[in-house]
């Protein structure tokens, strides 16, 4: 047998070359493989995971809001929102037309949006009703081109009641105004995250088990408001709007011992369930965001401070100059021509000349100290957003004019809340408390002691102010329309001219206010009504416009809260009614 011929050298060389090249290529590939699988493993694993998995935010359910009796004020429902994927819809007009028909939408505009084939997501309608969801399902739209997503919808079962205190949540669940905004960090909870797996085309194929961060539901919040008292206030404001046709009005009811707000109402108002129907001027919570000159409702603070500093005495008499008094270059007038008035009568008759003379005795330093002491010029610290601090100019900007103006409640501006909180200090014996609208968790609603408080005047002075001059304002002074059978009521009227944005005052436009409380012996409730620019009936005094409304709110609230009337006063009132004195 003959042996095979020996390969020639060139062939051998070629073979060696090919083997070497293949060997090198394989070696390079092997090294690259080792590099990918060994050194760069983590990096590529992460990238692969990122391409396959993505995190989706899971919305947290906002907490409920209830009043002090546990009545539901705001809650959250889960609703379904419909979306489509325009890039996967082959017949946009058919889909748009059928959806528009059942969802009460404009077919043309929906079609225009759906026709944009590059879009991968389009909300059709958010927060559908159950009936709408069923109708959409019955359409049997092409799979993968549409879907529902769960969203939360805020519901306010009380409608317009306490709308300004509550505020609302917008379509994206963000708190806007009121408690919804102020306590969004508590009510809103914390969003969670979950991982979803998707295919190469980005379609979700699996919801992975491990939720990275579960959503934290929002906390429930209990308000100090009592919805029945709130309703009393709202009804009276509606009646005021109908009778006096003012630009706006507001009312606050609070417990002077704790400064718990029982009612806070403003007109014009809105329905948080239908915010789209609200007028532009309806959004403002005028109880905390409207400032005005307090007028005569400021006078008791000046008198109480003067008494506390012993610059004034209860027995002091003031010559009211029969209605005209020249103070420097300024000529002051009273509505009636008073002669000599006692300190009590200066407040009861609300004499501007008497107060100017008190101002001269106190001087600007003490007047400024009095205003500061009762919290004017700074925020009260209530838990609502948008509160204004009012206006109290620094002492160095005060002039001789201020000595006459400040004691009358001019040259400074206050919010209704500031004013009633300051009056609460007189009613509770001299303690200026921070008002609150949120009840702390697990607290007794009758808890009287508050940590943040300041002493303003001595309890004796505060009691005297309430029991004598302020009670007499109601029994024989400017606030007679606030008398309530069976209760000793105290109060103070206020009428101030409207400030013009261009400077000075607007002639013939007044802000009427009345603050009252009862019972005098142990004040349990305080009511303030402020009426801005009534357009009916000329000079609209606080005692004429605001006092009847405030008295009605006070009367209804006293009875509702079972604050016992004085039997002797009741009998006297009944007797007076049956047999009025000649």
């Amino acid at each position, binding site marked *: 047998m003959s042996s095979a011929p020996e390969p020639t050298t060139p062939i051998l060389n070629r073979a060696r070359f090919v083997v070497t090249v293949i060997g090198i290529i394989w070696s390079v590939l092997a090294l690259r493989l080792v590099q990918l699988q060994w050194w760069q493993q983590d990096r590529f694993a992460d990238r692969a995971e990122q391409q396959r998995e993505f995190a989706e935010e899971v919305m947290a359910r906002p907490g409920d809001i209830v009043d002090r*009796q546990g*009545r*539901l004020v705001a*809650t*959250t*429902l*889960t609703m379904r929102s419909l979306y489509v994927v325009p890039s996967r819809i082959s017949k946009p007009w058919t889909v748009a037309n059928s959806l528009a028909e059942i969802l009460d939408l404009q077919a043309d505009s929906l079609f225009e949006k759906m026709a944009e084939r590059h879009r991968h997501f389009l909300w059709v309608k958010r927060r559908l009703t159950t009936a709408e969801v069923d109708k959409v399902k019955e359409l049997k739209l092409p799979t993968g081109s549409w879907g529902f997503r769960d969203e939360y919808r805020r*519901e306010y*079962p*009380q*409608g317009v*009641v306490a709308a300004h205190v509550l505020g609302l949540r917008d379509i994206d669940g963000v708190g806007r105004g009121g408690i919804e905004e102020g306590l969004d960090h508590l009510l809103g909870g914390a969003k969670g995250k979950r991982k979803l797996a998707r295919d190469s085309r980005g379609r979700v194929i699996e919801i992975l088990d491990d939720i990275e961060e579960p959503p934290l539901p929002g906390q429930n919040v209990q308000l100090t408001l009592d*919805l*029945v008292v709130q*309703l009393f206030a709202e009804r009276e404001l509606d009646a005021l709007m109908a009778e006096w046709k003012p630009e706006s009005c507001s009312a606050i009811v609070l417990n002077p011992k704790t400064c718990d707000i029982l009612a806070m109402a403003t007109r014009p108002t809105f329905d948080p369930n239908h915010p789209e129907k609200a007028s532009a001027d309806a959004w403002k919570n005028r109880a905390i965001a409207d400032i005005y000159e307090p007028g005569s409702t400021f006078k008791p603070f000046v008198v109480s401070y003067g008494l506390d500093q012993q610059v004034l005495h209860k027995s002091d008499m003031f010559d009211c100059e029969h209605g005209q008094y020249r103070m420097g270059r300024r000529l002051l007038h009273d509505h009636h021509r008073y002669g000599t008035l006692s300190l009590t009568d200066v407040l009861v008759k609300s004499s501007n000349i008497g107060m100017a003379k008190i101002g001269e005795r106190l001087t600007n330093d003490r007047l400024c100290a009095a205003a500061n002491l009762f919290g004017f010029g700074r925020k009260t610290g209530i838990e609502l957003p948008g509160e204004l601090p009012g206006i109290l100019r620094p002492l160095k900007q005060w002039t001789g004019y201020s000595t006459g103006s400040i004691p009358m409640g001019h040259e400074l501006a206050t919010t209704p809340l500031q004013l009633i909180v300051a009056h609460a200090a007189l009613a509770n014996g001299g303690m200026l408390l921070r008002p609150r609208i949120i009840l702390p968790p697990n607290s007794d609603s009758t808890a009287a002691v508050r940590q943040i408080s300041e002493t303003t005047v001595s309890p004796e002075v505060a009691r005297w102010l309430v029991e004598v001059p302020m009670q007499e304002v109601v029994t024989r002074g400017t606030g007679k329309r606030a008398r309530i*059978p*069976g209760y000793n009521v105290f109060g103070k009227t206020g009428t101030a001219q409207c400030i013009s944005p261009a400077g000075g005052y607007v002639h013939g436009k007044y802000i009427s206010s009345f603050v009252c409380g009862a019972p005098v012996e142990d004040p349990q409730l305080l009511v303030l009504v402020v009426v801005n620019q009534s357009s009916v009936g000329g000079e609209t005094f606080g005692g004429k416009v605001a006092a009847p409304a405030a008295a009605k709110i006070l*009367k*209804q609230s006293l*009875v*509702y809260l*079972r604050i016992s*009337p004085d039997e002797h006063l*009741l009998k006297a*009132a*009944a007797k007076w009614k049956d047999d009025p004195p000649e």
Partner: protein
Amino acid sequence: MSRSATRISQNSIPGLVTYRDNSLPLECAVIFFRFGAALLLVVSVALAGTALETRNLALKRSLSQQQYRMAELMEKQVALRLESQRLGTPAKLLEALERGDASLYRPPKPQRVDERRAPLLNWNPAENRSSRQRPATRK
């Protein structure tokens, strides 16, 4: 163990002799037993694993269903609570109560042990004494 063998036959191929191993049944039995035992172990581990996995999936499904049911019930509870609160808002009831068209009804066994004070809606006891004696109609 010493191995013993018996010559069986002389094959046609020269030099090739077939022997029978006398210890084969015992050895085979041991080998088969070991193999069978190993196989059984593997199969039983696999079956146990499958059973556990099935049970695990069943529990997961059950848990998921319960969570879903709980979420649905909570939703229903929220909706019903909302509806009941809507129907009983003071704004709806107050005027009817004041007019005397509706009266306050105290259930025989109240849900809340702590007595909630019901509103007293006669503003002036002296004026409304007669209306208080009127038999109230319940709606």
